[in-house]
């Protein structure tokens, strides 16, 4: 029961944050670009006439080299290393007593 309550808290938190973000994005983007629904009766077409998910436009499907994973791993490594070195540098500066 306790675990169910915790899961509910997480899901409610996620729903609130998600709802807020959805509202913000919908309000800001509706004033910029027209929306269209797949199979809608209004007959509206997207500006480029493409109903596909806008991901991977013009790219061939199939297994490719996992370049994105390597890029993400590189981002994580670089940021982590930067944080580590910054923390070490700040730690050293704190440990050095002020010169008289």
């Amino acid at each position, binding site marked *: 029961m306790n675990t169910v309550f915790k899961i509910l808290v997480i899901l409610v938190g996620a729903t609130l*944050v998600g709802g807020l*973000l959805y509202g913000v994005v919908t309000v800001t983007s509706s004033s910029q670009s027209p929306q269209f*629904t797949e199979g809608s009766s209004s007959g509206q077409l997207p500006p480029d006439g493409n109903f596909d998910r806008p991901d991977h436009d013009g790219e061939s499907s199939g297994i490719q080299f996992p*370049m994105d994973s390597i890029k993400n791993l590189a981002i994580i490594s670089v940021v982590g290393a930067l944080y580590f070195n910054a923390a070490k540098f700040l730690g050293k500066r704190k440990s050095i007593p002020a010169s008289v």
Partner: protein
Amino acid sequence: MSKQNMTRLLLDLSTFVALLVVGAPHFTGDAVHEWLALALSGAIVFHLLLNWKWIVEVTSRLFTKSAKNLRFGYFLNWGLFVSGIMIVLSGLMISKTVVPFFGLSLPQNMSWKQLHELFTNITMILMGLHVALHWNWIVNMFKRLLPVRTASKPAASTPVATLQRKDARS
């Protein structure tokens, strides 16, 4: 190593690997990308459950002096949470597999794709900081899991005979 720490380590490792795999939709294809991302959301809920005690403790004394060093990590984790929700939300909005599987169709909007990519990059940066913050814990867990066996060299004066097994002696 305690059972809970072992569970944490295994969950975190598999979540990290899944994050890297999910981050390469060109490699996996759309279906694997979307379903694995949904499973990853479940794993993150489990990760939060395992660390619930820490969340409650730090939240209750966030602005006290004793929690001064924890504030950065706390807000970083909130950033990760919000960023993760944004990825899931924008991913669902541009979904090709999961949303149609449930017989739903959502309004298409190009800005969701841009947001999906933007928040993926933000999440990777935050994840780098998250891993760096817990690096010592990760290293310690691996040290416990894989103890380095440093074979102690015998002293020069030790007679060779003493190193032989008893049953090997004539």
